[in-house]
């Protein structure tokens, strides 16, 4: 291993901006008066409500489910009364059916929530059932249902589980704090994932700008012969699934393929911690650690927030906005989605709420591409962003496809590095959507 750590080809070095919260211990957020819980927080089919307006619900009680395989059930994060079931904006930009629950302040725990016993005593299928019933989804952002990832087809032989502790997005520190404060949960969750897949090698990848997390996790795995810590170079997008698999195993996920094609399954720190809770206490995903940070929030914090809490409530608990609020983002600055309102709820994939002031929020004016080639040098997918975006802006989507637009992971590194401030990834996204639309038509 080089002294800089394992890594992939390309990538950028944005400023870390983690100082505001990397030393702030995780605090439990106040109980909100009301939660808005969307029934579609994941990739796949939306859930149908299993409660009616007027029902009393308890913490951990299932409020939405579906028979579809690619989906994950939804649970109540508070005890109280269902006041509304209505369409509501979510931070992903969609408007989905959501269950609004008025909290009674008692936080009574549902009878459904029961400890599942020791990991040693659980069989593969039992773990899969726990994962499904706990509503586990990828908590790094995309929100892919975890039980689907843990049920690869028989012909795909999985031999490694990689836990993503890179946290390469600037500003975010929720995974970092989790590794420092609850390394035991990370280890238990990882072992459960390995057992569910029948895998004997688990690697937890951590960027080298988090030496305390590396130390904490090394200590936690010192008696675990199947678990190791991989020190990764601090570089964005180190936590991208394909980049991470390459850094750890030197295997390339084939174009258009999935990690399972190279025998790997990747899980996020938040996801395995939640799985640990689902086993030891039986509590499904009803809360998560959220980093609230940026230049326009008064007291940046890492908070353990109930799913469904409005952004507004979370930010008020961090001292509120400063005068010059400019932008509100679900997630990190590289791939997060900017919001037009703070009346959206925290969902399972909300790793951070980034609040930028007017100065930081400014979008620079683009000028002519000078063909410096920096985007080509840094593209982690080996693409030529300038060519794809040029063709996309001219609506020449077939040419964009020929330049392998579909291999873009939308990490945004090209737009970050561009000295002419071209809307590179924006134009590539447009091309991808057009190409997908055309493929569906044919």
């Amino acid at each position: 291993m080089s002294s800089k750590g394992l890594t992939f080809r390309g990538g950028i070095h944005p400023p870390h901006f983690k100082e505001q919260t990397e030393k702030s211990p995780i605090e439990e957020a106040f109980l909100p008066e009301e939660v808005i819980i969307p029934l579609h927080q994941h990739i796949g089919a939306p859930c149908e409500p299993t409660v009616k307006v007027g029902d009393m619900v308890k913490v951990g009680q299932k409020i939405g489910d579906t028979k579809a395989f690619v989906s994950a059930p939804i649970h109540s994060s508070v005890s109280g009364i269902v006041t509304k079931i209505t369409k509501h904006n979510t931070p992903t930009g969609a408007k989905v059916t959501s269950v609004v629950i008025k909290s009674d302040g008692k936080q009574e725990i549902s009878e459904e929530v029961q400890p599942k016993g020791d990991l040693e005593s659980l069989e593969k299928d039992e773990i899969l059932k726990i994962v499904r019933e706990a509503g586990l989804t990828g908590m790094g952002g995309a929100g892919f249902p975890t039980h689907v990832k843990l049920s690869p087809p028989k012909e795909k032989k999985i031999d490694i589980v990689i836990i993503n502790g890179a946290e390469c997005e600037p500003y975010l520190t929720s995974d970092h704090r989790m590794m420092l404060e609850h390394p035991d949960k990370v280890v238990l969750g990882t072992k459960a994932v390995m057992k569910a897949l029948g895998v004997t090698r688990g690697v937890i990848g951590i960027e080298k700008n988090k030496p305390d997390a590396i130390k904490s996790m090394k200590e936690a795995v010192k008696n675990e012969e199947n678990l190791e810590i991989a020190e990764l170079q601090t570089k964005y997008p180190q936590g991208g699934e394909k980049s991470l698999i390459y850094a750890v195993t030197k295997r390339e996920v084939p174009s258009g393929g999935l990690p399972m094609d190279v025998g790997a399954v990747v899980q996020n720190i938040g996801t395995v911690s939640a799985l640990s809770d689902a086993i030891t206490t039986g509590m499904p995903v009803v809360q998560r650690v959220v980093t609230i940070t940026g230049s326009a929030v008064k007291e940046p914090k890492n908070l353990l927030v109930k799913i469904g809490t409005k952004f507004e409530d979370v930010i008020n608990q961090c001292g509120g906005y400063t005068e010059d609020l400019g932008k509100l983002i679900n997630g990190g600055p590289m791939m997060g989605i900017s919001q037009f309102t703070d009346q959206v709820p925290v969902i399972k994939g909300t790793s951070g709420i980034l609040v930028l002031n007017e100065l930081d929020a400014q979008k620079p004016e683009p000028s002519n591409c000078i063909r410096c080639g920096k985007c080509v040098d840094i593209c982690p997918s080996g693409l030529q962003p300038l060519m794809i975006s040029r063709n996309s802006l001219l609506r020449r989507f077939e040419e964009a496809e020929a330049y392998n637009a579909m291999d873009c992971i939308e990490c945004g590194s090209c737009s970050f590095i561009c000295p002419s401030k071209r809307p590179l990834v924006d134009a590539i996204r447009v091309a991808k959507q057009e190409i997908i639309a055309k493929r569906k038509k044919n």
Partner: protein
Amino acid sequence: MENKVLATSSPHIRSKDNTTKVMLDVIIALLPAVIASIYYFGFDSIKLTSIAVISAVATEAIIQKLLKKEVTIKDLSAVVTGILLAFNLPPSAPWWIPLIGSVFAIAVAKQVFGGIGHNFINPALAGRAMLLASWPTKMLGWENPAGVDAVSAATPLQIVKGAEGTLQPLSDVIFGRVPGCIGETSAILLIIGGIYLLYRGVISWKIPVSYIGTVAVIAYIYEGSLLLVGYHVFGGGLLLGAIFMATDYASSPVTPKGKIIFGIGAGVLTMLIRIFGATPEGVSYSILLMNVATPIIEKYTQPRVFGGAKK
């Protein structure tokens, strides 16, 4: 907070680099050679450089005003073109030579094709080629730099090719005490400028190294003497061309392999012209020819896509 926030697509942070800073770095890298040219050629150098820069910037501003486009002279790219054009002139050139050269470079080679980033050939070299074709005697009037006697003189490469004169010591060639275009004579200062550009990440090593390396290898095979290789590398416009002209973003390939092929191609052409051509120098035309070949080089040197997708 309604209506107060900006909603845009990610990424929400950008690097601090911009086009102006890139061009400013190129100007900084050219400064040592500018100072050397003033030291060696005195007022002639100041006069030609300032006329070239002012005409380049003015042409850009006037054209953009006339076409009702945004005036982008503050990106400093016209300044770079002006300096490079002046660097390619002999110190004896009359005042109107840089004026016409800059107007042609900016108006015809750059703005006609859409301005910065869209020029398919290097504007300064296009200007020089036009001047050389139109006023060859004005463009080839060499003189010795200050401190060396005699009014007219032969450049080291002319002498290597058989012109009358005594071959200057290689140390003079490296430091620039030789006849030549005002910006090309001091090899050492051009190299320092190149190192600065590499350090700042403005250029990659690929084009200069493959270009200069190819010239050196062919020169050694042809001349059979390391000393003469030194004259080929340091004596003419090669360093100025390889470091500052062939690396022009718009007219050279963006692909890593393409850059190497571009450098090798320019090196081969340069030596073909120097060996078989009518002139002792071949850098400008080689780069211009490779500029024209850039799109096809890019087409066949696309980088390997992660995951092995077919091109």
